[in-house]
């Protein structure tokens, strides 16, 4: 008979046709980095970075609501962001720290997503040959990668558009955020892009904001019911908030021309430029 073939490294003497698909890392990194060498650890990292990005998305959405208070308040908010930390910190210091943090989070989130996806593909080399009938997996959970990528591409576009002004050309005014946003959003294709991306984001969050509780091991009978509600509410909030911007811009409720006040109330260079444009 087939003599006993070691199955797990040399740890088990029992027989079986199966061989490991994945090998354990040759060297385990010291704590806590070793965590990231495992799938469960990576999922944990996805949860943590997901929360960081959720925090960003929420704050970002709330911040943008200032748009409805007009250019002055809006630009004031933008300026406030740059000076978070007051005199204690260099100008834009905290902002940059936050940006770097977010960038790191996004990088880890994407890297985990990519590596885990590869693992999952290899775990079932031959797919089911007859149609599957899913009963729990929903649209959101099965399109995480797609919605994630849509959001990623959108974020890149969004940065190119509003941070570096690549697409607005002449119309882009560094510092006059109100101007840039309203100009950008009043173009139909761009507004549609926002629509698509934010629906994708909401779908991503509908699963992600529930899933992270599992990945992080936050569960207790008392609030388990509430986890689904939380995810739906969070995704809905972001969806409504973020979609209002392109929609209200397109329908003209918010517009470039409705500005009546100077964009930045207090002095400084931006104020001058911005007022100059308004002339």
């Amino acid at each position: 008979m087939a003599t006993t073939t070691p199955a797990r490294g040399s740890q088990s003497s029992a027989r079986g046709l199966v061989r490991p698909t994945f090998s354990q890392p040759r060297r385990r990194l010291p704590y806590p980095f070793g965590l990231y060498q495992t799938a469960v650890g990576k999922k944990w990292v996805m949860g943590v970075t997901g929360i960081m990005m959720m925090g960003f998305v929420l704050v970002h959405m709330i911040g943008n609501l200032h748009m409805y208070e007009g250019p002055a308040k809006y630009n004031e908010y933008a300026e406030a962001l740059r000076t978070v930390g007051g005199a204690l910190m260099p100008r834009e210091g905290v902002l940059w720290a936050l940006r770097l943090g977010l960038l790191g989070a996004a990088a880890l989130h994407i890297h985990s997503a990519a590596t885990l996806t590869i693992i999952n593909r290899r775990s079932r080399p031959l797919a089911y040959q007859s149609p599957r009938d899913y009963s729990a997996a929903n649209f959101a959970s099965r399109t995480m990668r797609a919605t994630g990528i849509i959001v990623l591409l959108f974020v890149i576009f969004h940065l190119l558009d509003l941070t570096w002004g690549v697409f607005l050309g002449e119309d882009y005014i560094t510092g006059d955020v109100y101007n840039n946003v309203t100009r950008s959003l009043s173009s139909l294709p761009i507004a549609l892009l926002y629509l698509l991306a934010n629906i994708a984001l909401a779908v991503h969050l509908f699963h992600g904001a529930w899933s992270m509780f599992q990945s992080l091991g936050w569960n207790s009978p008392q609030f388990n019911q509430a986890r689904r509600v939380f995810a739906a509410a969070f995704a809905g909030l972001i969806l409504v908030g973020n979609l209002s911007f392109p929609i209200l811009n397109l329908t003209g409720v918010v517009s470039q021309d409705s500005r009546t006040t100077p964009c930045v109330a207090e002095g400084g260079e931006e104020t001058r430029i911005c007022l100059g444009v308004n002339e």
Partner: protein
Amino acid sequence: MRITLKVWRQDGPTAPGSFETYDVPGVSPDMSFLEMLDVVNDRLTLDGKRPIVFEHDCREGICGSCGMMINGVPHGPERGTATCQLHMRKFHDGDQIVVEPWRSAAFPVIRDVAVDRSAFDRIIEAGGYISTPTGAAPDANLTLIPKPVADAAMDAAACIGCGACVAACPNSAAQLFTSAKLAHLNLLPQGQAERWARTEAMVETMEEFFGSCTNHGECREACPKEISLDFIAMMNRDYVKSKRKNRKLLSQIR
């Protein structure tokens, strides 16, 4: 009843496989699904054809031997029911029933719809036990276990090791199986001494064979024992903690 059975036939682990279709008249609604396959097999044999290989033993939903994809659902359409407990009355006259083996890199097909699930044994061997050599245990009533804890441990321990969770999972992950065993042992006072070492070892062995969880929840829908997803959350928490705890425990050796 008359049904059409479309079954995956594959001669060996490396042989190519394909579906074959059989017309099955005379099915009684009181037959179990496996009894229907028995009838098909007897007819195949009398026709000089090779009968369908499928695993089964207890036929009462407890040994975990049986299991196949039935119309794209592990263990078929009835919730909380293993294949052997499924009855033909859940189908209708004229139905086509498609039967396919569990598919996962960790569950190689042996023949037809029989797969090798010994990867599960590897996970248990890695640490799915409480080390109590024969004779070493104190009086059973010395360790008091609150009823809710004993009940929760029993809920987790009800797993029959059938593999439906892996089969159902779009990522072919074994989280439900592994977490059920971990929860069973990690919840009990007797299991505390080895809790962190066990968690680390079992999770890392699991990851050698299986995919990673994306929290679809398909496993729980397919599970004949309706094992809760909460155990997966508990495993994730314990795993992350174990990395820290084990480091601490080791640092006490000087």
